[in-house]
């Protein structure tokens, strides 16, 4: 029989003072291993059941053209870290700007103290945590040069001015026109006491228009955005001419639109951003965060029918370039595809680490956060309703009098499952035909009721970029769906 040596070198805590823990501040790589494994070991030696560090560097810039001038160019540089400590099922999160060893140790100390724990004394033996070989998604996928490949400040200005010029030529009754762009470059490093050690770079970009037209008392405002992850050439390849034509056409149609008459209607919702209905009415309610709070009606419905039999829905982080795509989540777990609902039956919830621990639902690579000041929480990525078997003509033909919701605004869902969302471009449907434009519509309802009324899905699934605000901040997501029919829904108007 042979006796294995100690798996890790044992330090005494007072030896830490002599160690050189100067990890590079301008890059997150394997040089951080010693710093983080020691800190994680300190946390575990103090009695924490689980410790996780999240490090972030962020290089963000936004640019705005108004009429024919660049009126804003705003770079932002952010560096920070957060440490999460679990004791049993309770947890604590502390964030700091200070990425030195002592800065991170101070944050850990604070988190431990909040949990009723203290850093070990000066003569305690300390086992560093064995971290896995760095899973470096950034290097493996050639992302290290992304920032340098993105549009320069000069190019941002040139593209936006050209785009705004195109919009000015297309639109009439223009009161103001804006072209807006941002680039969010984020490098993250996650290390946890279960050995997780992973690095990634995310590049998220968005560009779009905001057009306000006015003619006397008639006004219309239309916004449109495109979003992308992982393509440094996104801005320079933006097809602004087509976007300008679309925005100008929508604004023109809505300028003289009547206000919608309130009531209960069948509606047809367009594809792409129409998917916000599922995001709000169902997606949020499938996050384990909601289970923990008891704020979802679907809490015990796994395996049961919760939607119309024609409805299947997914959430995933792997669609190429989609706005909610991530190679790993903010807890270092690789992204995956999660089947939420299959033919009306609830199949899975979206779970982060804490949600999994507290509810028993398996992690799905859904632990996401806006940045280092937030602890990760279960959040959506690219969420969409799967295409169905109906044609668009069949959907419209089934509506005698209803509303075509061509472009959606934002929405929200409350703790009792009541949701609402605004329609920014709508049309009356009469005898299967789209007739006059309508404005001012808000759709309201109950999640549990609406899901059974989505009775027809066409075969034209498409995705759209969006922003989702919730417990762990504002994150980038994709919503999507094919055109679909809701048999009846309350429409608030005048």
């Amino acid at each position, binding site marked *: 029989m042979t006796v294995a040596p100690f798996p890790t070198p044992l330090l005494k805590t007072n030896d830490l003072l002599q160690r050189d823990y100067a990890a590079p501040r301008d890059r997150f790589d394997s040089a951080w291993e010693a710093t983080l494994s020691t800190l994680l070991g300190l946390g575990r030696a103090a009695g924490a059941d689980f410790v996780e560090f999240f490090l972030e560097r962020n290089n963000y810039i936004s640019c705005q053209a108004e009429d024919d001038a*660049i009126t804003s160019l705003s770079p932002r540089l952010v*560096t920070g870290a957060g440490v999460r400590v679990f004791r049993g099922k309770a947890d604590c999160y502390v964030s700091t*700007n200070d990425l030195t060893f002592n800065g991170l140790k101070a944050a850990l100390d604070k988190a431990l103290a909040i949990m009723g724990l203290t850093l070990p004394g000066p003569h305690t033996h300390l086992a560093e945590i064995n971290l896995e070989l760095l899973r470096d998604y950034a290097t493996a996928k050639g992302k290290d040069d992304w920032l340098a490949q993105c549009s320069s400040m000069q190019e941002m200005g040139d593209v936006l001015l050209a785009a705004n010029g195109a919009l000015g030529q297309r639109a009439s009754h223009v009161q103001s026109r804006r072209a807006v762009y941002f680039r969010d470059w984020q490098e993250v490093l996650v290390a946890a006491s279960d050995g997780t050690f992973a690095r990634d770079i995310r590049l998220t970009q968005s560009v779009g228009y905001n057009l306000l037209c006015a003619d006397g008392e008639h006004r219309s405002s239309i916004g449109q955005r495109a979003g992308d992850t992982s393509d440094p050439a996104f801005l320079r390849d933006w097809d602004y001419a087509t976007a300008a034509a679309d925005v100008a056409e929508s604004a023109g149609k809505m300028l003289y639109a009547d206000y919608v008459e309130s009531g209960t209607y069948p509606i047809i919702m367009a594809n792409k951003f129409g998917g916000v209905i599922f995001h709000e009415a169902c997606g949020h309610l499938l996050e384990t965060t909601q289970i923990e709070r*008891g704020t979802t009606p679907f809490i015990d419905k796994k395996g049961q029918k919760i939607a119309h039999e024609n409805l299947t829905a997914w959430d995933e982080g792997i669609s190429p370039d989609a706005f909610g795509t991530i190679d790993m989540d903010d807890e270092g777990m690789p992204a995956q595809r999660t089947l939420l609902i299959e033919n009306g039956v609830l199949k899975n919830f979206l779970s982060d680490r804490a949600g999994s621990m507290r509810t028993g639902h398996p992690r799905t690579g859904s632990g996401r956060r806006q940045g280092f000041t937030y602890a990760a929480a279960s959040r959506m990525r690219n969420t969409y309703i799967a295409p169905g078997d109906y044609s668009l003509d069949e959907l419209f033909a089934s509506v005698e009098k209803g509303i075509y919701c061509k472009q959606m605004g934002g929405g929200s869902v409350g703790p*009792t499952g009541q949701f609402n969302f605004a329609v920014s471009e709508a049309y009356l449907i009469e005898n299967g035909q789209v007739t006059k434009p309508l*404005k001012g519509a808000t759709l309201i309802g109950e999640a549990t009721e609406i899901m059974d009324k989505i009775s027809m899905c066409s075969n034209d699934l498409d995705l759209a970029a969006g922003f989702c605000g919730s417990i762990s901040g504002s994150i980038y997501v994709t919503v999507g769906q094919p055109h679909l029919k809701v048999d009846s829904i*309350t429409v608030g108007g005048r």
Partner: protein
Amino acid sequence: MPTIQDIAAYAESSAKKLGISKYDVYGSSVDETSVQVDKGDPKQVKASNRSSVIVRVWNADGKVGVTSTSDVDPLGMDLALQTAQEASAFGVSDHIPDFSPESVAPTADVQVETVPAAPVGDLISTLVDVEKQLLAAHPAIASVPYNGLAQRAIDRFYLNSAGALRHEARSYASVYLYSKTEQEGRKPRSAGAMRVHRGLPLLDIEGCLKEAAEKTISHLDYDKVASGKYRVVFSGEAFLSLLGAFSNMYNAQSVLDNRSLSTVDSIGSVVASPLLSVYDDALHPENISVETFDGEGTPTRRLPIIEKGVLTQFLHSAGTAKRMGASPTGHASIGAKVSVSPSYYQVLPGAEASSEFSLEHAENVIFIDDVQALHAGVNALQGSFSLPFDGWLVNGGSRTSIESATVAGDFRDLLKAIVHVEPEAEITPGGICPRIWVDALSITGEG
């Protein structure tokens, strides 16, 4: 975090190294702790200590570049100033921002009390106890899914290369409680309340608890409401939500950008019923977040926006004031494009109102306590809104909770349709405002 004197020294040293002769810096540091609980146990405790600054530099052509950063050590300041200098090549050439002419003027002599942070254990035990009391307030209250107790200390400063140097500190604590009911055969209902003060010992936790419980219980016996036009009474908080959502009406930057419901000629025009007067006052004694200077260093002050229904003043930055021949009003936030925003509203009755309005005697009136989803249901550029709300149908003093409904209209019409502004004001974190009565608003009930 380095002291303001440290940051000033770093900025001066970096600027000298980079050949920058004109710059200003606005920054803040925040130290905060928050707790949530779930059925008697802490759910998540959060603490954060962070800082950030935003720097503006003027290049040799007089153009401005901006950068914000969370690194406030010498290296971080070097990089920020260097990036801002690079960005300055793309700064605007028309209406270039300048230092506020009032950046060295005296600020109001306001003594802001700062309260030391309470131990985290005290926050947790306090919230656990409050949750327990709220759950015990009624058998139908099954959970308090959203709750939180937080405390925050903020230091903020402004300095510029012309010698301005301002600094102030404040602290505040907040509590929110949002409870949810469950009853057999009935839909879940929920309601909440929030309180803010300068520190935990001053926080009206009892009042928050009582309000959350009363509101939640009051929504148990709900009913649908028929769609139609109703006389609507907005709570102070609900009216302030609408006022804030349509603030482009009196925001000078929005006016100059042609993204306002007003134009440069609107000052002096009638925009509301003569019963309504609106002021903005960052220095109001009830404002927990009192600030004596804005992001450009301009002193804050009380400003009349609407007096007896007449639009009297826009909110200005130094730049908008210069363009419109006015004075800066202390409402600016610096950035590549300086933005303007309100601080703390004070809504008062304008002309004397009739005493015939009383919720105790009103018939078929909708009382809206809270409007929701403003990010989705407000189209500020068109003036329109369509919003879900919490509220009751009031008949002869009895209130029936409304199951699910929206209120819709045009904000400009709403202001002119005000028929009564009650004399008693409600104090909220965003301002003080009495209940406002409005005629003939569209209500859509579900179903």
